[in-house]
């Protein structure tokens, strides 16, 4: 069965015909061809699919596109400035080597940005606990934690 969905993605109004069962992440990747949001699992645990919906981080694999009807969606492609300058959290990941293969990275960054909004100076333990919805197999988390600590500070400073 086909349904029509409409929403804003990275500031742009989009709409399409999808199946009722079409996941939001599939809509983003296949229909909108925004492939920066990744699929890493099928049990909603890896977090590689994380996007922002109406300002809060959600897992795009865990909802169907219809559930985002009328919502304001931000994907990793919409995070850097229009001229390509990295967001302070992205810049922090780069400076502190918070990524290796890059596959979990968009989800990490999306989660980190939402987390940092309410936590401008998080402790190591707070960051590690905040990452319980994001899996990484490459970095061992050590530098992701450092990146998020630095990124949170930078975000607070740039307000």
């Amino acid at each position, binding site marked *: 069965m086909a349904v029509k969905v409409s929403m804003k993605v990275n500031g742009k109004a989009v709409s399409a015909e999808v199946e009722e069962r079409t996941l939001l992440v599939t809509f983003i990747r296949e229909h909108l061809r925004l492939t920066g*949001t990744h699929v890493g699992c099928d049990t909603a645990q890896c977090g590689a699919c994380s996007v922002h919906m109406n300002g809060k981080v959600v897992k795009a694999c865990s909802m169907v596109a219809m559930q985002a009807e009328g919502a304001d969606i931000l994907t990793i492609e919409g995070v850097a400035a229009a001229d*390509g300058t990295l967001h302070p959290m992205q810049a922090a990941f780069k400076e502190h080597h918070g990524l290796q*293969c890059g*596959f979990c990275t968009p989800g990490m960054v999306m989660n980190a940005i939402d987390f940092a909004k309410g936590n401008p100076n998080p402790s190591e333990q707070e960051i590690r606990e905040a990452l319980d919805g994001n899996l990484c*197999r490459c970095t*061992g988390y*050590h530098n992701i*934690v450092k990146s998020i600590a630095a990124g949170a500070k930078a975000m607070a400073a740039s307000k």
Partner: protein
Amino acid sequence: MNAPLIGARLARKEDYRFLTGAGQYTDDVVLQNQSYAAFVRSPHAHATIKSIKADRALKAPGVLAVFTGDDLAAAKVGGLPCGWLITDVNGQPMKEPPHPCLAQGKVRYVGDHVAVVIAETQEQARDAAILVDVDYDVLPAVVDPVNVKKGPALHDVAPDNVCYVWGIGDKAAVDKAFASAAHITKLDLVNNRLVPNAIEPRAANGSYSRSEDSYTLYVSNQNPHVERLLMTAFVLGLPEHKVRVVAPDVGGGFGSKIYLYAEDVVVTWASKRVNRPVKWTADRSEAYLSDAHGRDHVTVAEMAMDKDGKFLAMRVKTTANVGAYLSTFASCVPTILYATLLAGQYTTPLIHCEVTAVFTNTAPVDAYRGAGRPEATYVVERLVEQAARDMKLDPAEIRRRNFIKSFPYQTPVALMYDIGDYNATLDGAQKLGDVAGYAARKKSSEAKGKLRGIGYAAYIEACGIAPSAVAGSLGARAGLFEAGEIRVHPTGSVTVFTGSHSHGQGHETTFAQVVADRLGMPIENVDIVHGDTSKILFGMGTYGSRSLAVGGTAIVKALDKIIAKGKKIAAHLMEAAESDVEYDRGVYKVAGTDKQKLFGEVAFAAYVPHNYPHDKLEPGLNENAFYDPSNFTFPAGTYVCEVEVDQDTGVVKVDRFTAVDDFGKIVNPMIVEGQVHGGLTQGIGQALVEGCHYDATGQLVTGSFMDYAIPRADAVPSYAGDTRATPCTHNPLGVKGCGEAGAIGAPAALMNAITDALGVRDVPMPATPQTVWKILQQKKKAA
């Protein structure tokens, strides 16, 4: 001149695209006229196939085709090859059963490929796959690797389900030493089966072009040229030059993406049949079923010592599970990559190891980060630590008494270590880990009602694989050299084509550091290209911590040729004798004068050769090199781990983890640290939370992230790390490789700490809260 780039903690060039969602992973590629594949997989661990009926599937919406093993057989498609021939203890070749891409007559593990459905959309293919009717006659499953002879034979060629019995060392001499030893320490050890779980699931997109009569395969893979060679020569019978394999951005591999998999072959073959590109992407549950698994050894290990704890001999017997079929490198992992490391960092003069590799109705097992060396280190370092406890010696002291101190050192298990300083890394780890303060921390833990333990692992490994002749003599069916090409452009920038592949290791940055440093140019002027057989001359790919040592050296040798040619050009431009021209990082000088030419001027002259030694030299500045290493490299180090155990819940907290490694010279310390962090976390994962389990009927019980945990950020600490360097003696960079060390040494360090905390001889991996709690309860009862 620019600041030296070797040793610089440069941020990575590749990060921008990954941070902005502009990476291109295999599933991101959608080709014109794309069609999609879904595989029908066996729900049974062991069964004969009575019939496959595709009628309902073929009628489903969007379905283009359904293919089975019969279709592949009719098209004379071969089976998946094994790349390493192991010779058994009787001088006979290992058993090599057929490994069909789609099952022929029989299925041998849950997830085994039975048929493929190709449709217009991913959803249509998956919906239709359910409609393929397969009639099975279920057979009893063989699951326990130590009891394979009791069950039915998986393969006609191996009636007792044994692939080979292999041995190394002088058994008679070892037995003699044991007979007269003052002390023997013995342990039964299980190296638990793991699922690699790169966060990007495997994917493959095969296409055929009628106009060019050629194929292209996009695949999440670590070694595109090897993939192409295996697929064209051994399976599809295609001309190699007519197939292009592209491994674009790959989201982690850890060994699991080395192999030629059935899916890769089937989508390539099918794309010609349906005349459409065919794309397949695993979901995570499918990856659990069908990716090559790792480890899965059952071992009895013994160390014989004199009264002072000097190691006299070691005796090891291992049963290694290879799974239902031989995967590409499966045979060499529990033999050549395992038993040859049993000397560890020690002068143990006599070692014997016997390995029985067996077939079971489980997914194929092959190399996974460390590939044989974690298994070896687990055996050696658990034995050594237990020996210290048995003999009431300090665990660091017993190691010092046995360290190899003079190099090169010929071990009794084939390998010759070129250089090392094991006291330096042990000293470093004890200092950085503040072992002196352990007693106080233990009191502190106990005051909180917790148990505390400390454990060491002094690992060594052999990587930078490998000298081809040596590998060949040990059964390798391929060479293990590496290739690199340096293309200098007329305006002086450089493109480097490398046969290595980066799936997280940062080669685009570290290789550029090596080249830019030598050519005296900003790193922005050097681009590293990898992963495409149509662009790159050749390569054996990335695994076995070989990229910088072997791939990097190929690049250095190509650089040598570039600089040598440049010298001839510079000599001509400066009207000097070639022997008077010196080169240093971007500048050619005439010795004893102030005459100089910059590399950029020389490059330009090569492409605009108006003033040029045409009688001696061709124009252009483009050189390549193939490098075959003369030995393995031998990174080594000491890890120290402290754990705190909650007696009520069995939860183990990794409270401190210190790693001091000798990787030889280091090009980018930040990237090396990242590799260590990642390896340690996978090793801790093996020790604490990961365990792949099949039940008695061969069902994969741990088939998703719900049932198979991988460490999350709160399962591991921040790591304390440092390095010591004894530069590798046989490559110009002096590098040893660092990608696997963490996964190799961490499990032993963890389990030594946990057994120390609990005061027991063995705790099985993974040491989950339930496992630890049960052991604590048993101890209480026994007391």
